[in-house]
């Protein structure tokens, strides 16, 4: 029963969505729109599941005085203070927005900017010409990088043209091949879920 009920629910919702998307009556009644709204509401309600998990783990850290437990204190304070502020004043409030813009936004930008350095270190490892494939990768990356900066055009007019060809023809062909396989794979996976063949998400192996 523990596995059958979620399976039956999945099947019913999937058939309902298909009905809403493909049938004349379904589109007229805008069934999928209302399902989407229910999904958003359940997502928002599920926030508590995550917040409780975070609180449990970090409360244990504090109670057992694990190393760095003071970080847990800061985390719990920030989590619940910001949550309460939003709950009391709403997310359009000036203070709420100030806290968000002065802390979350710059911290996220900092993390995003780290990617530039990681790209350099990953590229250094990937571009070592150890095999034929690595040499091809190195040469291609070199041409594409040169083609993206004005220097490439100064060295030889053909570099940006070759870069455009690499990006537009072999790169797009490869990407689209993978994308088509992914879409069909997603479809077959959905079908396996609908038929109850894929059961990992119900707990336990397939």
């Amino acid at each position, binding site marked *: 029963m523990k596995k059958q009920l979620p399976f039956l629910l999945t099947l019913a919702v999937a058939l309902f969505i298909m009905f809403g998307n493909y*049938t004349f009556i379904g589109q007229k009644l805008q069934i999928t729109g209302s399902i989407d709204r229910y999904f958003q509401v359940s*997502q928002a309600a*599920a926030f508590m599941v995550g917040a409780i998990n975070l609180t449990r783990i970090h409360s244990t850290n504090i109670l057992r005085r694990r190393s760095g437990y003071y970080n847990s204190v800061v985390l719990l304070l920030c989590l619940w203070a910001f949550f309460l502020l939003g709950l009391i004043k709403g997310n359009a409030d000036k203070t709420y927005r100030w806290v968000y813009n002065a802390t979350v936004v710059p911290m996220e930008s900092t993390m995003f900017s780290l990617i530039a350095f990681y790209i350099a270190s990953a590229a250094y490892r990937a571009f070592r010409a150890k095999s034929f494939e690595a040499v091809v990768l190195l040469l291609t990356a070199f041409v594409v990088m040169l083609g993206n900066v004005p220097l490439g055009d100064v060295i030889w007019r053909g570099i940006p043209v070759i870069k455009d060809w690499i990006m537009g023809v072999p790169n797009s062909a490869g990407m689209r091949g993978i994308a088509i396989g992914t879409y069909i794979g*997603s479809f*077959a996976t959905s079908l396996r879920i609908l038929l109850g063949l894929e059961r*990992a*998400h119900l*707990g336990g*192996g397939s």
Partner: protein
Amino acid sequence: MEFIAAAAAPKQPVLGFLAPGVVGQFFTIMLLLLLVYVMIQRAKAGLRIPAIRKIPGLDAVPEAVGRATEMGRPVHFSPGLGSVSNPATFAAWAFLAYIAKICAQYDTRLINTNRDYLVHAINEEIIKQAYLEAGKPEAYNPDDIRWLSDSQFAYATGVLGIFQRERPAANIMIGYFYAESLLFAEAGHLSGAIQVAGTTNTTQLPFFIVSCDYTLLGEEIYAASAYVSQEPVLVGSVVGQDIGKILVFIAIILGTIFENTMKTNPLTALLRK
């Protein structure tokens, strides 16, 4: 001067029940569905079906967990940023069930970090069940299944912190990833972890390819449950999807020929119906 606007003709259902504009799409889906269903039935009947080719990324999972066991360090698993409505997350669950079972058998600590609350709740259930099936329910530690944040980079920061503190010996990333993919993969490399990654997001695949030991490309992640279990019915569905892929490629070639030789492309017209 007066203009009389003609009222738009009300839309009529196609074939009595289908909405106009999705008929081609509907029949394409039905054809793919039929293909997968036929292959599943063939497999069920014990008829011969092609085997799945070797996927090194999947074969590397027990090796990665084994290495972590020998080193006495944990295994980290991330399903990425995908929500419960993303098919890549379902593929991640098949992996998680497999990895959790191996970790339970080897007595290796498994740390699972999550961004989505619902995915987190399901992951808890999958890992708990895997430990039960392995006969080691006492080894299950709910504190190792962590929801970090629903914000992309706050989640990434949390994962990087875990890499720094807990130094996992194996880092497995299967699911839908965005810009955090390279952050995870480089941090994993710095902590000396063996890394297996797979995503359906084509813009992130190059990052995984250059920074991980094994990468599963796009649809390969969907073959996990069939590949691991070798159950004929699941293998049949993978074969069905591959035949569907061949048909799509034939349609692309035909479409290219029609587009360049005919006034109106019949394939495009059919799909727009």
